[in-house]
C-alpha cells in the first residue's frame, strides 16, 4: 500500500459524498454525504500522517477533532431537520426555499 492508494480512496469517498450532497434532495441523505466527505478528509489526514510526517500525534489530533466535530454537527443538523419537519412536514431540500430573495 502506498500513499497514493489511500489518497485515491479518500478522493473516491469525497467525490461520493459531494455527489450525494449535490444531488440528493432528502436532508438526511445530504447529511450522509457531508459525513462521507468528512471521513474522506480524516482518511487523508491519517494517510499523510503515516507517510509524510514523522510525529504521529499531529494528524491524529486533527482526526479526533473532526470526529468530535462531526458528532456535534450531526446532533445539530438532526435537530434542525426535526424542527424543519415539524414546521413543514417535509425534509426535501428543494422545497425549503424560504430564504430566497
Amino acid at each position, binding site marked *: 500500500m502506498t500513499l497514493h492508494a489511500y489518497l485515491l480512496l479518500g478522493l473516491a469517498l469525497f467525490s461520493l459524498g459531494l455527489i450525494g450532497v449535490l444531488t440528493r434532495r432528502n436532508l438526511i441523505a445530504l447529511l450522509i454525504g457531508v459525513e462521507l466527505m468528512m471521513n474522506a478528509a480524516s482518511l487523508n489526514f491519517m494517510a499523510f500522517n503515516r507517510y509524510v510526517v514523522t510525529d504521529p500525534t499531529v494528524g491524529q489530533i486533527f482526526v479526533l477533532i473532526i470526529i468530535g466535530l462531526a458528532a456535534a454537527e450531526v446532533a445539530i443538523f438532526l435537530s434542525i431537520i426535526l424542527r424543519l419537519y415539524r414546521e413543514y412536514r417535509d425534509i426535501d431540500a428543494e422545497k425549503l426555499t424560504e430564504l430566497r*430573495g
Partner: protein
Amino acid sequence: MDTLSLLLLTTFTPLFAFLIALIFLLQQPRAAQTVVLLGSVVSLFASIVLFLQGPTEPLRFLWFSSGNIQLQFGFILDGPSLMFGMVVALITGCIMVYSTGYMAHDPDKTRYFSMLSLFAWSMLSFVYAVDLLQAFIFWELVGLASFFLIGFWYEKPSAANAARKAFLMTRVGDVGLFIGVLLILQATGIFDIPALLNPQTGLSTQVSPHTLTWITLLIFVGIMGKSAQFPLHTWLPDAMEGPTPVSALLHSATMVAAGVFLMIRLHPLFMAAETTPVVILTISTFTAILASTIAMVDTDIKKVLAYSSISQLGFMLIGLAAGSLFAGVFHLITHAIFKALLFLCSGIYIHAYETNDMATIGRKGGRNLKATTTGLVIGGAALAGIPPLAGFFSKEEIFAQLGHNGFNIYMAGAFFAAFLTAYYTFRMIFLIVKPDRHEESHDHHHGPLEPLNMKGPVMLLTIGALITGFFGGQIAHMLNIHAEHHALLDMLPAIAVVAIGVFVAYLDYGRSQAQRTGFISNIGALNTLFVNRWYIDSFYNAVIVRLTLAIAALMHWFETHGLDGNFDRLGLNILRTGTQSTRVQNGLMQLYLAWTIIILGIVALYIGMA
C-alpha cells in the same frame, strides 16, 4: 423732567401698554382698554412737553456693531419730528377714545386696543428715529400693525385679503427702500440721519450724482408703497375693510403718513439728486389726478375718503418734490387732522346707519347728527381747500412753490386735482346733507347715535381743522424756514379752482332739482374707466398675480418632476437592480453549494497553474 425720560415716555408707554394688554389682560377687555388709553394719554402729554421744549440736539446710543456697521438707537428732536410726533400722539389719543364707543360691543377688544397701541409705538418711534435703519425697522412695524388692524375682522375673507394686499404691496415698496438703505450704508458706512444730511460731509458729497439718483429713487419706491402712490396705491382703498377708527388712524397720522414723513426726513437728499424730483412730481401729480377721478364716482363714503387720501398724499409729495419742505410738512399736518376728522365722522354714520353708501346715509337722515355733520362739513371744506380752513393754506403753499420753481405742467395738474378734490368733497357733503328723499331711519341702537366718547374726539378735531390753517407761521418757524406771506392776488387762482369745483358739485348734487349723477356720467367711456378704478386692480390680478402663480407652478413642476422625480427614478432604478439580482438567491442550497465548488475549483486551478 429731562428730555430722555420724556422721549421714553412718549415712545415706550404705548409699547408697555401693548405688552400688558396682550399678555395679562386678554380676558379683561375693559382693563385692557383703560391701560391702553392711559398709555396713550401719557404719551400725548410727554410729546406735548417735548414740543414745548423746542428742538434740541439728537440723542444717540450704540445699539450694536458688526464689522463696519454701527447701528445706533436714538431720537432726533428737530421741528418735523416734534410737531408730527405730537400730532401722531394727539390723533392716536382721539381715535382711541373714539374706539371705546365704536368698538364697544366687539368681543375682541383687547386685541384691538393692544394693536392700536403697537401702532402708536411703532409710528412714534419711527417719527423720532435718528438712525435710518432704526427708522426702517419701525417703518416695517408700522406696516405690521396696520396688517393686523386692517385684518382685524379676520373672519371676513375680504378683510383678510385686504390685509394681505396691504402687507404685500407695501412690502414690494419696502424692497426698494431696503435696497436704497443698504446702498447708503455701502456708500457711507453710516445710518445716522443728521450725518447723512450734512451738506458738507453727508451722502450727497460722498457718492456720484448718478448713484444718488438711484438711491433716492429706490427710497421713493418705498414711499410709493407706504404712501400709496401709483402704481402701488391699490391696497389703500381695500384697507377700508378694517374698523373705521383704524382707517382714520391709517390715513391720517400713521401708516400712509410714514411715507411722506420719510421724504420729509430725507428731503435734502431728494433735492440734491438730479432727476428724482421730476420723477416724483410726475408720479405724484398723476396719482393725485387718478385718485381724485375715482373718488368722483365712488359711492362708498370710506372709499371716497380713501381715494382722497391717496390724492392728498400726492399733493404732499408734490410740495416736497417741488422743493418746499414747509409745504409738505404743513399739508401733512393739516391733512392728518382733517382726514382723521372725516373718517371719524364717517364712522359715526356707518355705526348709526350700518351702511357705507353716501346716498343712503343722507336718506336715512345723516344730517340729523349735528356734531358729526358739522365735523363733516368743516373737515370737507378743509379738504377741499376753502379759505381760511386748514387745507387751503397748505395747498396754496404747494401751488406757490410749484409756480415759484417753474413747474408749470405739474402746477396745471395740481390745479386740476384741486378742482376735482373740491368737487368730490362737496359731492359727498351734498349727498349726505341734501338727500333726494327721506327714508324711515330704522333705529337699531338703544343708545344715542352720537355717544359722547365718539362725539368728543370729532368736536376736538373739528376745532383742530378750523384753526390749524393759521399756524403756518409757527410751523415754518419750527422748521427754521421763513414763511412768505402770499398776497391775496396770488391766492386767487387757488380760490377760483376750489370755487369752480364747489359750484359744479352744487349743480350736480346740491340744487333741489339736481340730477345727482355727476357730470362725468355723460362721458360714458371715462365714467366706466373711473368706476372700474382705471382697471389697475384687474390688471394686477390678471397679470402679476397670475404670473407669480405660474412661475410657482412651473417651479413646483420642476421640483416634483424634474429634481425630485429624477432622484426618485434613480432610487427606483437602484431598487429594481437589486430586485433583479435577488433572483440569483433562489433558496436552493445545493445550487449554492455547486456554485461555490465550481468557483473554488476555478480559483484553485488558477492558483495551481500560477
